[in-house]
C-alpha cells in the first residue's frame, strides 16, 4: 500500500467506509462498506458485541489496541485512517456527555474551538453564539455539574460542532435521556448536523432513532456474537 493517501474518483463529499473489516484475535467482528453523503445520517444497528462502537472508534482514530483492521476510511475524498485523531476532523458524541468537569461550560466550548479563531473577543463571541443556539445563553461561567441532563447533552453537542468537524459520529447518544427529552434532543442534533452538511454515522439500539434519520440503515449481524468487545 502506498504511504500517501489516495483519492477515489466520483466520491468526493461525505464519509466513506471502504470495506472496513474489524477482527480480534483472528475472529471477524464485522465488515462494513458504506458511504454517507454530506448532511445525510446513516444508522448502524445490530446486537451487542458486533463491533459497532469499535467501528466508530476506528473511524475517529481512537480504537483500542488488539484489533486487526482492514479497509480504509475516506472523508471528502481524503483517506483519513492513517491520520492521528486530532487531524481527522471527525467529531464524536457518546451516550454520556463527557463534559470536562474541571472546566466551566464556556471553558468546555472554548477548548473545542480551533486555535485559528483568534482574539479573545472573537472566541468569546463564538462560544456565546453556540450557547444561544443551544438555548443556553448566559451559561458560559456555569459549572457543568450544576446543569440538567438535557442541558449538558446540548452543551456536548455544541462542543463537538464548535470544533468544526467534517463528519459526526453518534455512539448511542440518546439512550440515557428520558422519552420526552429524547425526541426534542434528537431533532436538535439532527438539525444541527444537516445545517452544517455533516455526514453523520449513528450507532443505536433504538429503532425510533433510526427511523428519525430518514437515512440508510445498516444492520450488522456479525459472525461471532459471543465474542465480547474488549476495551
Amino acid at each position, binding site marked *: 500500500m502506498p504511504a500517501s493517501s489516495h483519492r477515489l474518483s466520483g466520491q468526493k463529499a461525505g464519509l466513506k467506509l471502504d470495506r472496513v473489516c474489524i477482527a480480534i484475535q483472528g475472529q471477524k467482528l464485522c465488515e462494513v462498506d458504506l458511504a454517507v453523503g454530506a448532511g445525510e445520517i446513516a444508522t448502524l444497528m445490530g446486537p451487542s458485541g458486533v463491533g459497532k462502537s469499535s467501528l466508530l472508534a476506528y473511524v475517529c482514530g*481512537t480504537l483500542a489496541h488488539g484489533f486487526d483492521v482492514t479497509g480504509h476510511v475516506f472523508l471528502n475524498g481524503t483517506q483519513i*485512517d492513517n491520520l*492521528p*485523531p486530532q487531524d481527522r476532523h471527525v467529531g464524536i458524541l*457518546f451516550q454520556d456527555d463527557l463534559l470536562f*468537569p474541571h472546566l466551566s461550560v464556556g471553558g468546555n466550548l472554548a477548548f473545542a474551538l480551533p486555535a485559528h479563531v483568534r482574539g479573545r473577543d472573537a472566541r468569546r463571541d463564538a462560544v456565546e453564539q453556540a450557547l444561544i443556539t443551544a438555548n443556553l445563553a448566559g451559561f458560559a461561567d456555569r*459549572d457543568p*455539574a450544576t446543569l440538567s441532563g438535557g442541558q449538558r447533552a446540548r452543551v456536548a453537542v455544541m462542543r463537538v460542532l464548535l*470544533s468544526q468537524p467534517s463528519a459526526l459520529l453518534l455512539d448511542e447518544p440518546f439512550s440515557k435521556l428520558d422519552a420526552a427529552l429524547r425526541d426534542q434532543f434528537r431533532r436538535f442534533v439532527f438539525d444541527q448536523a444537516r445545517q452544517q452538511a455533516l455526514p453523520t454515522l449513528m450507532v443505536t439500539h433504538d429503532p425510533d432513532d433510526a427511523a428519525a434519520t430518514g437515512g440508510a440503515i445498516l444492520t450488522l449481524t456479525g459472525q461471532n456474537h459471543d465474542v465480547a468487545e474488549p476495551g
Partner: protein
Amino acid sequence: MAMPGAGYGRCDGGYVPKLLKYAPGLTVFLMVGPLVAGLLGTVLPAFGYLPALGGGQWSLAAWQELFAQPGLLISVRLSATTGLLATVISFFVVMLFCAAWQGTRAFALMQRVLAPILSVPHAAAAFGIAFLIAPSGWVMRAVASVGGWDRPPDIVTVQDGWGLALVAGLVAKEVPFLFLMTLGALPQADAERTRHVALTLGYGRVAGWFKTVLPRIYPQIKLPVFAVLAYSASVVDVAMILAPTTPAPLAVRILHWLSDPDLSMRFMASAAALVQLGVVVALIVLWWGGEKLVARFGRGWAEAGGRYRYEGSVRTAGALAALIAAGMVLLGIAGLAVWSIAGFWRFPDMLPGQWTLKLWLRELPALGDGVINTIIIGGAAVLLAIVLVVACLEREQRTTVSRPGRGALWLIYVPLLMPQISFMFGLQVFFTFLGLERTLVSVVLAHLVFVLPYVFLSLADPFRALDPRYRQTALCLGASPDRVFWRVILPLLTRPVLAAMAVGFGVSIGQYLPTLLIGAGRFATITTDAVALAAGNDRRMIGIYGVLQTILPFAGFGIAMLVPAILFRRRRGLRSGT
C-alpha cells in the same frame, strides 16, 4: 490488507514524543541500577571479597561464621513469623473492614482519619505504641491507678519472645497503607455495583463482598501486599523498639553486625543480608502459593451459595479491628505529644505532674536547616518521581504497550521487595565510585529508589481508571495529545496526583540510612536528627521529633487535599473525585 501494529487509527497516531517513549526504560534503570550495584556490594563481601578490609580471595568463611551464630535460626524464624503474621492480620483487617462497612458513614470516617495515620513515621508510631503497651505505659498506668500500684509489673509486654508487640506495631501502620491502596482499587473494580448485586441476591454484606468484590480487587492490591510482607519481614526501626532482643529478628542483628567495631564482621553481615533476602523471597513464594490455594477453595465456597446473612458480630469485629489499629497510632502519637511537653512524669500518673515548653524552645531555633533540607530532598525526589510515573502511565495510554514493556515495569517495584539493609552498603560504594556521593543529586536519587515505587503504586490505579472517552473526546475535538494531557488528563487527575505525591513525600521523610550514608552527613534532615537524638533515649526529645516528623507529611497530605478543593471549589463534578 491487514496492517497489524501499523499504528494507524489509534490513540497515538505515531505521535509519541521520543522522550516519553523512553520514560519507562529510564524509570526502570533508575530503580534497578542502584539496586543491582548495591546488591553486588553485598554479594561480593558475603563470599569473602572486600579488598578495603583485606578480603582478597573467595571463601565461604563468612557463611560458616554466620551459621555458627547462636540463635540464628530463631532470628530467621522470628523474622518470618512476625512478617507473615503482621501481613495476614493487616490484610484481613482491611478486607473485613471494607467488606463490612463499604458505603457507610463509618467507612467515610475512616477515610478521613487515614491521612493523619499515614503521616506518622513508622519509628514514631512504634515509640508511641511502646509507650501504650509497656508495663509502665498508659494502659498499665490506668490499671495501676485503680489498683494502687506504685511500680510497674515486672512482666514482658513489649519485646516479648513471640514478637507479638512487633506484630501489633506493624499491623497498626500497615493497615492504613493497605486501606489506602484498597481505596484506589475499589472504583476500578466497580466494587460499589458489584456489592449491590450480591446484596440483592440475598447475600450478607461481608460474605457477598468476599465472594464477589475481593476476587476482583485482589489482583490490584497484590503488589502492595507483597510490599507489606517484604517490609514486615525485614523491618529494622520498628523492630529495634518493639521486637525481642534475645535474640532479635534477623534484620536487627544484621544491623548490629554491620555496626560491630570488629570490621571483619561485615563479611558475615553481608552473608546474613543475603539470608534476609532469601527469607523475603521465600515468604513471597509462600504467600503466592497460599493465594492459589485460597482461590481454589474460595471458588467452591462462592459457588456453594451460602448467604451468611447473620453477620452482626463479624461486622463489629471488622470495625473494632480497624478502630484498634487506628487508635493505637493516634493514641501513640498523642502520647509522644504529651511527653514532648512533660515535666517529671511519675509512674503511675496518667499525665505528667509538671508541664514545660523548655525543650521545644531549645530545639525550635535549631530546626530550620533540618526542615529545609527535608523539604528540598523530599520535594525534588517527589517531583522527579511524579514526572517519571506520569510519563510512564501517559505513555502506556498513548501507545501500544506490548507485553514485555509492561512486564519490565514490574521492576519498578523491586525496591519495595528488597530489604533495605541488603544493599545499603553497596549503594554507598556505588555512589562514591561514581563520584556522586555527598551531592544533593545522589541523595535525591537514593530517595527516588524508595519514593518512586510508592508513587507508582498510588497513582497507577486512578490513572488507568480514568474514563478513556475523555481522552478520545478531546482528541476528536482536534486537540493534540500533548494539549489533551496538559488541559484534560492532568487537571482531571489533580487529586490522585497530589495524593500520590503526598505519599511519596512521606516515604522520603522517613529515610534515615540513605540520607546519612549517601549524603555523607552533608544533608541533616528532621529524620537524621531525630534518629541521632533517639539514641539518647530521652522520651521528651523523641516526643518532639516524633511530632515534628508527623507534621511534615501531614502538611503534605493536607496540601494534597486542600489544593484541589480550592482549585475546583466551583466544580462539583470533581469534588468526590472522578
